[in-house]
């Protein structure tokens, strides 16, 4: 992607943190899906947090893509949690009958990471264990 970054994908221990900074069109959303799924394999991530706090609308395509990411990530061994859905966005999604399936959701990044800790075990990469920590 060129120009200002629409999405950033950062690594945080065994997790990936993907923040969507601005509304994405369908092709950008698809590109995001490919990037993220790629990174999950490359970084051997155990969990993914997708932060959508900056979005004031989540349309059906975006919702479906998020759900797909969740399912694909699960097949590649990572748990996905979507965080930062705003109240209005949440209610609109429900009112329009968008199915989020088995997607995990949490209030914000912190809660999302806590949820991942509960789901996949505490944040202790193998290297840390070798180093003798805790």
């Amino acid at each position, binding site marked *: 992607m060129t120009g200002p970054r629409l999405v950033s994908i950062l690594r945080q221990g065994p997790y990936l943190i993907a923040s969507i900074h601005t509304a994405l069109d369908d092709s950008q959303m698809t590109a995001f899906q490919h990037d993220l799924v790629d990174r999950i394999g490359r970084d051997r991530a155990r969990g993914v947090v997708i932060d959508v706090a900056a979005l004031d609308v989540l349309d059906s395509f975006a919702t479906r893509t998020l759900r797909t990411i969740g399912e694909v990530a699960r097949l590649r061994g990572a748990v996905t949690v979507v965080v930062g859905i705003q109240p209005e966005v949440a*209610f609109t999604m429900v009112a329009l009958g968008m199915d*989020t399936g088995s997607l995990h959701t949490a209030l*914000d990044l912190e809660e999302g990471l806590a949820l991942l800790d509960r789901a996949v075990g505490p944040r202790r990469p193998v290297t840390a264990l070798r180093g003798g920590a805790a």
Partner: protein
Amino acid sequence: MSSSQGPATTTAGFDSPGEDQLLPQLVAHLREHRARLRHEWSERIQQAGLLHAMTPQEMAAETTSVYDNYVEVLETGSVEALQRYARDLSERIIPRGVETHEVVGIVLLLRDVLARSLFEKYQRDFGLLNRVLDAYEPAANRIANTVAVSFVEERERVIRQQQDALRELSTPVLPVRERLLILPIIGVLDSERARQLTEQLLTGIRTHRARVVVVDITGVPEVDESVANHLVQTVDASRLMGASVIITGLSPKIAQTLVTIGVDLSKMDTIGDLQGGLEEAERLLGYTTSRDDGTGGP
């Protein structure tokens, strides 16, 4: 009908007043016979059985002011003062239970009483009477309109005010523990209130960073299908924001209604009473409560 009186606009002679003289003449007439006409009007109001919420003294006072305002509007053609008076009057009489039809009724009665007196005065000269009525009727209708609109506007303002007050009172969002909110709902849940509930619940989740919300509907007498569906949607939306919702206090009646109308409740977490809901919420949040009476303890 062949016995026509000729066109209404008969040629105006020199002794006949010009168009701009008609209204002042009319106003002078109404001022002159003020006491008699006002009395006649009050009697018609009583006969019609209007305004029984008011005492005779109040009636006398109000009818006098209305009469004077009425004539003044006829004279000046400006309804602003009347508007102010009508709003003020409405403010006083709405709490006493005066209805819209009564207010409109008394104004129309006054219009009729005055029209009759004009008939009487100008009965000799039909052409002149027509012109007087041409001047009188639009003004009178405008007055009736103004009073009715002012009354209804005032009433709507009162209703809005009460709705706002109710809205603020109706759904408190109470943080009881870190990450735990309670929403006790009392009274009928209509779709408007359900919408507010959703809004307050979802923003409450964000501001208090709640993970569990207990919605207690013990005080709700009944719900219909749309409200039930709205509740389900609210629960779903809360889940999207990372909070679990526990509904407590479903009365037997509501529970049966929900099952009968076939609302999908499989995703709703319900517990019998508020106490049970709180215990479950604490369990979800990892709290353990113990009573310090010497027997228990950690």
